């Protein structure tokens, strides 16, 4: 078999494209779970009692030290031994979510901490309570500050999701490799799958930059 005529070319492209959905489900699901965990942890680290703060710090340290593929293997090969067999897709979602939650926690904590002290003082000076200051000043500003990094983080998760190949999840990268093996030509399928990642990541990075510029203009970051 080779990749000589248009019909085959489009068949293979069709097969690769049909797995984009799987890649998106995998990355969006793990990304959202990671965001939920990270938000909770970052609130705890900033507002929580001391011992919980320590716990979160250790969580971040430990989880950041785990290679992604190891996290996936733990969920896929390790959990069945503990009596929780999980299908590959779920293992991948949980593995990526676990690791990414540590990175997102740092992102959110950084955003909350980077809300200027002057803004907080002004909020107190008009009589807002701690909660009111958080609700009306810190959170809305931190939310905006976090957006560019959060979008970039999604690009990273999207690309990292290709590691799910290692536990047999059929997503776009896996599909490309399979085709490569069948037609004994790695270059073309891999270039095509590269383009797929690029076409998703590039617009995201443009959007992220836009938000970043907006924040600079609004004076919420960088001075």
């Amino acid at each position, binding site marked *: 078999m080779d990749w000589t005529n248009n019909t085959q070319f489009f068949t293979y492209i069709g097969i690769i494209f049909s797995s984009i959905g799987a890649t998106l489900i995998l990355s969006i699901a793990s990304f959202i779970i990671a965001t939920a965990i990270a938000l909770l942890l970052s609130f705890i680290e900033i507002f929580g009692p001391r011992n919980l703060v320590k716990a979160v710090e250790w969580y971040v340290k430990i989880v950041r030290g785990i290679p992604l593929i190891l996290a996936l293997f733990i969920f896929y090969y390790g959990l069945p031994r503990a009596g929780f067999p999980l299908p590959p897709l779920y293992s991948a979602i949980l593995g990526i979510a676990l690791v990414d939650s540590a990175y997102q926690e740092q992102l959110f904590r950084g955003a909350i901490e980077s809300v200027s002290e*002057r*803004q907080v*003082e*002004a*909020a*107190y*000076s*008009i*009589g*807002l*309570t701690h909660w*009111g200051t958080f609700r*009306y*000043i810190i959170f*809305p*500003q931190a939310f*905006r500050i976090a957006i560019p990094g959060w979008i970039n983080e999604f690009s990273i998760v999207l690309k990292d999701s290709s590691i799910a190949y290692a536990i047999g999840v059929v997503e776009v990268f896996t599909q490309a490799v399979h085709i490569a093996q069948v037609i004994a030509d790695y270059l073309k399928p891999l270039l095509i799958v590269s383009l797929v990642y690029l076409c998703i990541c590039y617009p995201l990075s443009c959007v992220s930059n836009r938000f970043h510029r907006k924040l600079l*203009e*609004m*004076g*919420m970051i960088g001075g």
Partner: protein
Amino acid sequence: MADYILVVEDLWKFYGREAVLKNVSFTVRRGETKVIIGPSGAGKSTLLRCINLLVKPDRGRIILDGDIITGRKDVHSIRSQIGFVFQHFNLFNHLTAIDNVLLGLVKVKKLPREEAMRKAEEALLSVGITEDLWRKYPVQLSGGQQQRVAIARAIAMDPKIILFDEPTSALDPELIWEVLNVMERLSRNGMTMIVVTHELGFAVKVAHEVMFMDGGTIVERGSPEQILLSPKNERIRRFMERMWYLYSLDIQSRAV
């Protein structure tokens, strides 16, 4: 005591072992404008911050309109009765001019939307911020406009007193005038104000009393003419000579 809106008694504040406020005592009458001058590091800002409890004093009492506010639990409701205008304006970056003013009215004073809107508009107009600027974000405004919005934010809350912490120090000379002008009008209309500033012209024109602070204490106080033109204290005289030189004014010709 009834005509004193603010009484500060024997106020002390330490940072580590260093006292930044030492035995500061003074009173402010209803409708009075008090100007505090002095070199940087004298404790002027710390004093203002203690009065609205942004900084917790270590010793002494502050009495606002008959209530002892030091050591009280409800600091937030006390702060809502004291306006504060910052050197760097500190407008909320993510809110438009009018939303900056509305926030305290709606979320702290819990006024109904319509009434809050009316008060906010009134406050903005009173500092010369016209309707075309209401929907602009702080970055879209000049420094002078931002500071006037910040003053409106303080006025709208109907505070018992407004504290100004070097309100014109971060402004271009051209813009200083428009802010001082607003403050002067505020003072003439009977607002009680404590103003930390280096604007001697403002002090001469508007202040009822000037206090000179240095090293965490009030070194001398008196009428603007007395402190600015013929201070008893040598340290103040030197400071004033430099200030007048800075403003290209001959100290002799300033005789009032």
